[in-house]
Structures are given as structure tokens and as C-alpha cells.
């Protein structure tokens, strides 16, 4: 089952969450897309550690380090994601932007209870494609906002208003396919 096909499922229940899917190191990390305000080149980061875009300044943070993920390092595909809600904004580097994907709520799984540590604050859950899995970063943790229960409810959207395969015109990103993410050998 590909994620494109999961969109057809989405139309049945009419509720899904749109994610920006990225790569950080070997991990596929997804962010609720409603708080994505832009994607810029790494050169946009000023010497003062701020990214200013559309007259708004975003504090730059090392999200890979915060997530304890080993980034591949800067490459031609490295991008800076501008993420914000109300007055709170942060920017962070990702190794690659895969694109946007709408995921049916029922296909989003919480972290299994076997995970008992601080990762429960950082990662809300995951969704899976045929060959890979995207971990959902907690947007409240990303922005250092107070955590809240059922955080993803805030981002639910009714996909009946959107056609399958439709892209976000503002960001002009393709619909992501996670097939591009290789499954690693760990554990």
C-alpha cells in the first residue's frame, strides 16, 4: 500500500493530517504541515543565528541534535524549514525534503508503550508506507511550546475539500513517497 493510495482511503472518512516529510540522517521525520511557514536554503541563516523571511525572524535550532539523530551533514539537498505558530517560530535544517503527504488518521499510530522515555515528548507517533516509516515530530516540542494531549487533533483537516494527489500550491511541493527512504539495519 503506497501513501498515494492511502489518500483514497482518506476520502472515505474525510479526516487526515497533512505532513511535510523530511529526511534527517537515516530517519524519515514528518511535521504537521500547517505550521510550516517556508523552506529556504541553508545560506539564509544569518550570522546571528536567525533566519528572516517575510519580515519574521526565526531562531535557528539544531533539530537533529535535539532529536539525537545523526545528520548526514550539509549537502545540495539540505534545506532549512521555517516552522511557527503564532509568535513562536524556529528554523532547523533537514537533510532532504521529501514532500507533502496527507495521511488518514486511522493510519497514524502512537509510539508503542514499550517506549517509556523522553522520546514520548519528542515523537507523537508514526505512519508507514510499504517499505518505510515516518516518525512524527511533536510540533509543540519542536517550538518549545507547552505540550498538550491529543496534539495532532489540532492539525486534522477534512480532505473532501482536496483532491487526491493535490499539492500544496503555497509550498509547491510534490506529494511525498517514502519509498525513497532506505530501511536501515539497526538493532
Amino acid at each position, binding site marked *: *500500500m503506497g501513501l498515494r493510495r492511502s489518500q483514497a482511503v482518506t476520502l472515505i472518512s474525510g479526516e487526515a493530517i497533512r505532513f511535510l516529510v523530511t529526511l534527517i540522517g*537515516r*530517519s*524519515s521525520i514528518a511535521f504537521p504541515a500547517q505550521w510550516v511557514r517556508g523552506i529556504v536554503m541553508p545560506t539564509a541563516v544569518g550570522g546571528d543565528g536567525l533566519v528572516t523571511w517575510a519580515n519574521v525572524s526565526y531562531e535557528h535550532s539544531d533539530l537533529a541534535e535535539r*532529536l*539525537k*539523530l545523526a545528520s548526514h551533514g550539509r549537502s545540495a539537498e539540505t534545506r532549512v524549514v521555517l516552522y511557527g505558530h503564532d509568535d513562536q517560530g524556529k528554523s532547523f535544517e533537514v537533510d532532504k525534503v521529501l514532500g507533502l503527504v496527507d495521511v488518514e488518521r486511522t493510519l497514524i*499510530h502512537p*509510539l*508503542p*508503550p*514499550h*517506549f*517509556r*522515555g*523522553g*522520546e514520548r515528548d*519528542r*515523537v507523537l507517533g*508514526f505512519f*508507514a508506507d510499504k*517499505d*518505510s*516509516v515516518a*516518525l512524527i515530530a511533536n510540533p509543540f516540542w519542536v517550538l518549545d511550546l507547552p505540550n498538550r494531549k491529543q496534539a495532532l487533533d489540532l492539525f486534522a483537516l477534512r480532505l473532501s475539500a482536496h483532491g487526491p494527489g493535490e499539492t500544496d500550491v503555497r509550498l509547491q511541493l510534490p506529494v511525498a513517497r517514502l519509498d525513497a527512504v532506505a*530501511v*536501515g*539495519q*539497526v*538493532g
Partner: protein
Amino acid sequence: MLRGQLRKQGTTARRSTGEGRPQHMVVFAVAGKRMAARTEEIAGVVSWTGAIPVPSETPFVTSLVRQQEGCLPVFDLAAKFKQPIREGESLCLVVKHVDGPLAIRIDAEVPSLQTVPRSSLQCHIGDDPDCAGVYVAGGEQLPIINLATLGVSSSRQAG
């Protein structure tokens, strides 16, 4: 005999049980280290498809593995026993854990099912709550792993 005395007897450092029905055990290997577990704690063995790392602080639970339509958390038994993982073919032992199904990467040798007299099992309460004791097989002492509660106590201690 008082209940307290009975409890104390049950938690003596080492005891052998030579009576009762034979115990069904599964013997498997993790990174070359052979170990055993009770069959009733094992849900099955499937092919190992590779793990997806999760940035986790939970000891030894640091990845997910695909299984059918979903994902299972992986307990890194090789890391717990400080065994360097061997690259190559592996199998996935699916465990009936108290928190839900759990996956363990094991060596490619198919686990063997053994029916053993209880006298060959030495149960002991040691420092490691994940080990129930040892199974003596052919002069070899195999640790018996408490698969159903693997990591539960150590996580609480760490937390």
C-alpha cells in the same frame, strides 16, 4: 508455615524444581550468544526486514520493525548482553510482551523447541529482572530470558 516464610522460600537465591510437568523451552541465539525462553512467551518467528531507528531514551528499545501492516518495537537483546551485532541474515522473534507484541532480532539459525525436565532449569532471583535463571543443556548454561516483561523493570529503574 507462615505466608511470609513461604514467600521467603520462593525467593531464595537458587532453587531447583525436579518435579512437575516438563517445561517447553525455545533456544535461540542473539549475536552468537545462545539463550532460552519459555515457549508460551513467544508468538512466532518471521524474517527480519531491517529496523527503523527511533530517537529513544528507553534502554534497548531504539527502533521499530515492519511487520505485516504495522510496526513492532524492537528490543535490542544484543546490546543488553553487550554482544556485537553480526551483519547478515537474521530472524525476528515476536514476543508476547505485557505491553504488546515486541520484536527481537535473533540469529538466522532457526530456534529449536525443546521439552526439558524442570530439574534442568535453575531459577534464581538475581540482579537482572530480565533473566529468570539458567537452563543447563549439555553442560552449557543458557540464560532464561523473561521475554514477557523484558525491559519493564530496567526501564523503571532507569526512569
